């Protein structure tokens, strides 16, 4: 009797539906891009038989073999007259400073044969130890952007600088004093001098505004402390931080500097560890790192500050919600006990809200400790009211000439339409932007500025500190520094370098310039303390921290009446990768996954997945988080603006609110802002809309902001959200959002638990136990290490053992390491379509894990009363307000590497220094290694990214100019090989060579991988584990350190350090 039982894998199969029949007839569910190779119609028509095919193949192979016999002649061209400081093949580093109106960092620019190829922090002299972020280290690509203006232009036609100067001078004299210079915040004393000269020569007016405005903070400090400036925040002094909708680790003000200071207090081994409360609507990078995160709507955020004010300073109590009130009470207790070491910070740009923040900080005594307004930061001097007035004046025809310097108001001013309408009425419009961008393309005269890496400048971030900007390459195009242009237009023919040096003496004269040696030291270090701080026209600093003058009652009532909430609330935020959009055409940044959602190449409307499932204003949305899911598109309208974007589920988003990132939608008017700013299709061509226009990436959300009290605010209530019915695919790099209870990946504990066992030996503490496997006849189990069928690898204690320690506690997930790795290792950019196909090439990624409601499978089953299968499914969903962990993941360089044993051609092998080596020229592309890797860090190179047309608009290697950025020490891999993190073996080799050359052992810290160097919080430590005194050794021996997936027994050389949350209730 045969068995008649029938097994089926799904209902479809059981019922044999049509869709199922079709599905099983296709081997591949999705179209394979191989069709592209055979996509040529002519090829399809031809009927090449098998034998013909073999003949053709034989002939081709024969021909190719013959052709290959003749080696090509390669030219080698030496310098004619060699510059003294360049040795071909040896890198030079130059100290400089990065400032783009948003980010600020002291940097070292690496050049090879005169080409800048890498930007890292200036560890010794830079602000905050040269902390950089992804936007800063990726900015090097902008230098080589072939969309930059190649020279001056007049009325759309190329012209000479003489012609341009003549036209500008004619326009300026015709304007007869009605001249305005519009710029971002200028913190350069010499540039200010040049602007002053220009103002004097033409009776001009200078207006500054910032793309993301902080004028509310300035205004509040003007009324509370008499100093219209943004304060200098010192997070390294803050024991308790209460942040209200302020993404100070990702994009708020100079986030890289804040991140550095914040990170220094996130090590539980230190004297103390800060406690961080975050109240916010959207899940920001900062919120994901907070010890306590309380989701609030934007209006509740402001009221919460009023509530905190009541709790700390006094006054009538304000109630938000039950949970909110409790959290505020706790935060207030903690803040009060921290006293001067507390810090309250708000991302709001409403002066009334900021006034309350000032009152709280002042009451806590924080001024002078965690923030300072007497030595304020010089950043963000933008004045929204002045900008608004300028737009009105332009529309009234009162501005006859407008010089635009380093800003893009047609894109990032909230009333861009008004600005554009006014611009038409200005007789002479001059843009000095590097691109004919949204604003530049509307100006009549284009006088392109030099890129920062081609320029001289001085920057005064705060106090007497002057940071120097020096050129690292001659101007690539016929551009001229704007300061020099301004001088020329004011009738001063001094070159800017001399002018710059003149600034540093009392008389501003050539005769009194600083001595060469003093000057060269300043240039060499990239910074100096100015003997006499040159005047910036702001910051009349008082002698001591000024007393607070604020009418709190008035501010509280203003806040209460302004934030009644209502309807759907919206918050606008700056994305961590794209910032305010200045680098919207930078493919490295576009492909950098968002730290929270892991979305690449796109902007979206963030909504709580629970809202999406249960209905948001009655409408449900598709909400499966995955790599290539389709999402519903919706239109968001408020304040006269509207954007249409896909709706993407973001756990932790306050229910009933939505958030949208600024900085997308560049080039919507077909401006030349760079080819990677536009969407590309399956075969690499730019997507076009019905009118044949290129489709920008995402949409510009600046238009959704509005003015309150003369300041642009980035929140709104009563927002209209309407589903359009369209479908949209969003490319993300991560499929698994929770760790499903596998505690061997991420280890986490609370500060109290940590302190209780602080002195425990490694592997002993309850929060970081050695992984034990069950053995027969014992209840104890045995450590994984006891089960080893491998021969002991000789790297331990012998020679070098390169390794890394990654502190999950100080890692904030900002992605600086990811882009630094891209730049250093020529990692290909693949574009959205390939990310959708799971073919992203990041050698280093940051896994982001949300906590689910119940940490273990057992608990889920018990508490919910559901079966095992349902319990697992349930654990895939993140909690409503999940705790988040960021975990950098790259090749773990296992000493017992599973990839090495399965390679049929020994292309991946182990070195006696502990490196898992990947030999591309030996690899035949079987991909067995990737299948056998427990960490999934190996990337298969599917295409010739440097040549195939699909990547023409994204891959830097495909542009004659842009490919100058490639690192000549690392090979550009071609199609068909596996690649992965090499632990920057080129840097290890160089470091060892330097040591051997000087006849000494390698010094600890001398060799740094690109990721370790780029980490603003020093979460990544690299070094020689066999060097007993090395930092990586001590971190590896620390009781917090563990190996990810220890139970698989692969013995990695990468150590992770247990995350400790300063949240004892959890």
């Amino acid at each position, binding site marked *: 009797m045969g068995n008649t039982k029938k097994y089926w894998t799904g209902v479809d199969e059981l019922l044999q539906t049509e869709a199922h029949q079709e599905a099983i007839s296709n081997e591949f569910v999705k179209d394979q891009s191989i069709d592209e190779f055979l996509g040529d119609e002519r090829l399809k028509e031809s009927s090449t038989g098998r034998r013909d095919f073999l003949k053709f193949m034989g002939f081709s192979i024969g021909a190719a073999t013959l052709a290959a*016999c003749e*080696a090509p*002649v*390669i*030219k*080698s*061209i*030496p*310098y*004619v*007259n*060699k510059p003294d400081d360049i*040795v*071909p*093949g*040896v890198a030079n580093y130059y100290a400089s400073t990065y400032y783009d109106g948003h980010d600020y960092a002291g940097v070292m620019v690496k050049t090879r044969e005169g080409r800048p190829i890498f930007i890292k922090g200036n560890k010794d002299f830079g602000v905050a130890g040269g902390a950089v972020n992804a936007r800063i280290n990726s900015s090097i690509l902008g230098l080589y952007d072939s969309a930059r203006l190649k020279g001056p232009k007049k009325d759309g036609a190329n012209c000479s600088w003489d012609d341009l100067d003549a036209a500008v001078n004619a326009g300026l004299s015709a304007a007869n004093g009605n001249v305005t210079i519009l710029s971002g915040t200028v913190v350069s004393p010499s540039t200010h001098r040049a602007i002053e000269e220009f103002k004097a020569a033409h009776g001009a007016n200078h207006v500054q505004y910032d793309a993301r405005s902080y004028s509310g903070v300035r205004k509040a400090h003007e009324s509370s402390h008499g100093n219209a400036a943004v304060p200098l925040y010192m997070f390294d002094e803050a024991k308790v931080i209460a942040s209200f909708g302020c993404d100070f680790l990702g994009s708020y003000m100079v986030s890289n500097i804040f991140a550095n200071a914040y990170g220094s207090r996130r090590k539980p081994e230190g004297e103390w560890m800060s406690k961080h409360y975050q109240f916010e609507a959207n899940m920001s990078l900062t919120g994901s790192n907070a010890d306590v995160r309380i989701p609030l709507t934007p209006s509740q955020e402001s009221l919460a500050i009023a509530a905190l004010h009541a709790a700390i300073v006094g006054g009538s109590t304000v109630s938000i919600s039950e949970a909110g009130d409790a959290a505020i009470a706790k935060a207030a207790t903690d803040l009060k006990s921290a006293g001067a070491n507390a810090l309250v910070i708000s991302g709001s740009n409403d002066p009334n809200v900021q006034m309350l923040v000032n009152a709280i900080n002042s009451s806590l005594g924080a001024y002078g400790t965690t923030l300072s307004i007497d030595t304020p930061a010089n950043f963000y001097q933008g004045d929204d009211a002045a900008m608004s007035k300028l737009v009105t004046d332009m529309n009234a025809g009162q501005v006859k000439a407008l010089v635009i310097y380093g800003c893009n108001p047609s894109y990032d001013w909230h009333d861009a339409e008004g600005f554009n309408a006014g611009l038409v009425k200005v007789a002479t419009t001059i843009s000095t932007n590097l691109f004919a961008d949204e604003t530049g393309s509307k100006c009549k005269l284009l006088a392109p500025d030099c890129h920062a890496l081609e320029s001289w400048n001085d920057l005064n971030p705060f106090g007497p500190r002057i940071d120097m900007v020096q050129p690292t390459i001659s101007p690539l195009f016929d551009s001229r520094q704007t300061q020099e242009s301004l001088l020329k237009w004011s009738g001063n023919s001094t070159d800017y370098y001399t002018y710059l040096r003149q600034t540093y003496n009392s008389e501003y004269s050539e005769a009194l310039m600083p001595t060469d040696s003093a000057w060269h030291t300043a240039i060499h270090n990239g910074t100096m303390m100015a003997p006499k701080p040159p005047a910036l026209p702001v910051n009349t600093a008082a002698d001591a921290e000024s007393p607070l003058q604020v009418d709190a009652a008035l501010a509280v009532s203003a806040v209460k009446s302004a934030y009644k909430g209502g309807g759907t609330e919206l918050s606008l935020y700056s994305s961590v990768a794209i910032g305010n959009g200045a680098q919207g055409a930078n493919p490295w940044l576009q492909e950098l996954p968002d730290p929270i959602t892991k979305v690449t190449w796109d902007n979206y409307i963030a909504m709580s997945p629970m809202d999406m499932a249960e209905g948001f204003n009655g409408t449900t949305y598709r909400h499966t988080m995955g790599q290539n899911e389709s999402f519903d598109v919706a239109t968001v309208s408020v304040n006269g603006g509207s954007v249409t974007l896909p709706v993407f589920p973001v756990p932790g988003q306050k229910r009933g609110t939505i958030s949208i990132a600024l900085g997308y939608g560049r080039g919507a008017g077909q401006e030349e802002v760079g080819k990677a700013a536009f969407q590309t299709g399956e075969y690499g061509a730019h997507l076009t809309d019905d009118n044949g226009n290129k489709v920008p990436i995402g949409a510009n959300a600046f238009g959704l902001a509005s003015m309150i009290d003369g300041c642009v605010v980035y929140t709104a209530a009563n927002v209209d959200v309407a589903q359009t019915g369209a479908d949209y695919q969003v490319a993300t790099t991560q499929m698994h959002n929770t760790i499903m209870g596998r505690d061997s990946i991420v280890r986490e504990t609370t500060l109290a638990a940590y302190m209780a066992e602080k002195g425990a030996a490694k592997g002993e503490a309850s929060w970081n136990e050695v992984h034990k496997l069950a053995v027969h006849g014992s209840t104890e189990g045995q450590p994984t290490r006891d089960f080893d069928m491998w021969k*002991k690898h*000789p790297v*331990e*204690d*012998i*020679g070098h053992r390169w390794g890394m320690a990654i502190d999950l506690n100080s890692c904030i997930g900002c992605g600086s390491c990811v882009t630094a790795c891209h730049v250093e290792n020529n990692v290909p950019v693949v574009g959205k379509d390939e990310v959708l196909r799971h073919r992203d090439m990041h050698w280093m990624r940051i896994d982001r894990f949300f906590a689910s409601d119940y940490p273990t499978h057992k608990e889920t089953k018990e508490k919910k009363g559901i079966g095992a299968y349902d319990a697992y499914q349930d654990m895939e969903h993140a909690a409503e307000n999940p705790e988040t962990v960021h975990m950098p993941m790259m090749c773990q360089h296992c000493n017992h590497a599973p990839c090495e044993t399965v390679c049929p051609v020994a*292309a991946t*092998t182990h*070195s*006696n*220094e502990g*490196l898992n*080596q*990947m*030999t*591309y*020229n*030996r690899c035949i592309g079987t991909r067995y290694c990737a299948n056998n890797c427990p960490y999934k860090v190996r990337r298969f190179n599917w295409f010739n990214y440097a040549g195939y047309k699909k990547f023409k608009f994204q891959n830097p290697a495909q542009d004659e100019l842009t490919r100058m950025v490639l690192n000549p*020490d*690392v*090979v*550009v891999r071609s199609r068909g090989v596996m690649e992965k993190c*090499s632990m920057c*073996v*080129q840097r290890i*080799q160089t470091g*060892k*060579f330097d*040591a*051997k*050359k000087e*006849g*000494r*052992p*390698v010094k600890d810290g001398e060799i740094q991988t690109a990721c370790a160097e780029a980490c603003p919080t020093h979460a990544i430590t690299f070094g020689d584990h*066999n060097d007993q005194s090395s930092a990586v050794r001590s971190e590896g021996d620390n009781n917090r350190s563990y190996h990810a997936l220890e139970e698989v027994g692969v013995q990695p050389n990468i150590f992770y350090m247990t995350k400790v949350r300063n949240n004892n209730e959890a």
Partner: protein
Amino acid sequence: MRAMTVIPSGTFLQKGLLSIFALFLLSGVSINSHAAIFDEGDPEAGALVFDSYCVTCHELDRAKSAPALAGVADRWGSTEEMLVMWIQSPSAARATGDDYINNMYDKYSSQYADMTAQLVSVDDIKNVMAYIQNPPVVDGVQESGCVTIHDVKLEDEGTTDKWFLVLGILFIIVILSAAGVARSLKNAIRERDGKEPLAHQTYWERTKEWMWNNMAFTSLLGLFATIFVLVWLYMQAMGVAVVENYEPEQPIWFSHSVHVCENDIDCEYCHHSSRKSKHAGIPTSDVCMNCHKDIQEGTKTGTEEISKIYAAIGFDPSTNSYKGAEGDSTMHFGPQDSFDGEPIAWNKVHNLPDHVYFSHAQHVEVGGLDCKNCHGPVETFTVGRVSNTELTNSQTEVPGLIELSKPTLTMGWCIECHNKANIDKSNEYYVEMHNRMSATSRGQEEMRKIMEDNQQTVKEFGGWECAKCHY
């Protein structure tokens, strides 16, 4: 007057000698009046003084950065005392208001640098004057002893191959003719015997029949032929990408032999980044000019090749000055960046694929290798060429030469050397590595294994690992 340089041809030398003699005779007559300073010196002692003081600016037979000195005895239009004063203190001499000196100064000051005071005695001046009038004649062509690879006639193997081919074809024709003749004879016999002539068969059919009848022999032959073809294919395959003796034509006929062998210039003088960088460095034109500012004529190629350097860097040998940007008529003493010259585009000789990382500095500075270890007897090369193993191994004079068997510039060659070369144990870097090993018992065991052959080769310290060269 070209007695200073090595004169290449005998007849020319004789002519030169004759003219020098003639000059001596003439000058002896005309300069009687100041015979004291021009005639009393010792030419050999003068040569030494000339070479240490005067040669910086002066030559005998051509203008350098100062006028040529030959014939000065004839030209000098002032007193001997003024000549001495002019050499010892030109400014004092001019201050005396001497007409001849001031005229001379006016005439030359625009063209040449100012004469500087020389710390020489009157006796030295006498010796120099003697030397100027009577420079020691180079005794015939000096044999440099330098032989280049091109001087050695290589056996023409191609011709032999051709003869073998012709012979082979002849052999086949003879065999076929003989077979034809044999058949005709056989038919003639059959005819005589009154039999039917053999059926008509083509050569191919007859061969097949013969093969069928002699199957054992045919099989054996076939086996040998197959083995031969396979071996031949293997040899061919092993020759793919072997670039030994590659010697591309270069834009300048540059001779390593002249520079290295005849003039004894160190490799690192021109290839000056070999201790600092992965590239040894191709000399930049300004490095060439260090010598070629003065050496304006080559012994083998005259001015033709050297003038290509001048074209690149903007040097004008007629005025001994450098050109600046277009439209700049100033004569510069040093090379100008503003000069828009075409750099010399050399053809790269030693090409490694992109996926190979090789550092000269690692091998020369740390490994302490002599250039010749890999590059062979460069002094016998003219333009750059890839040396072959045979040549490289033949240099018994090179200290620490490592003899290798694989073709140069192949990976086999690299790793063969890494297996033979020893590391420098005195380097503190390796001292530290050894200390770490001796600290653990496992390390000591490793060390014992390494030292079994009393050598610590590069391979034993990871020199055979992929990521040492491939990343």
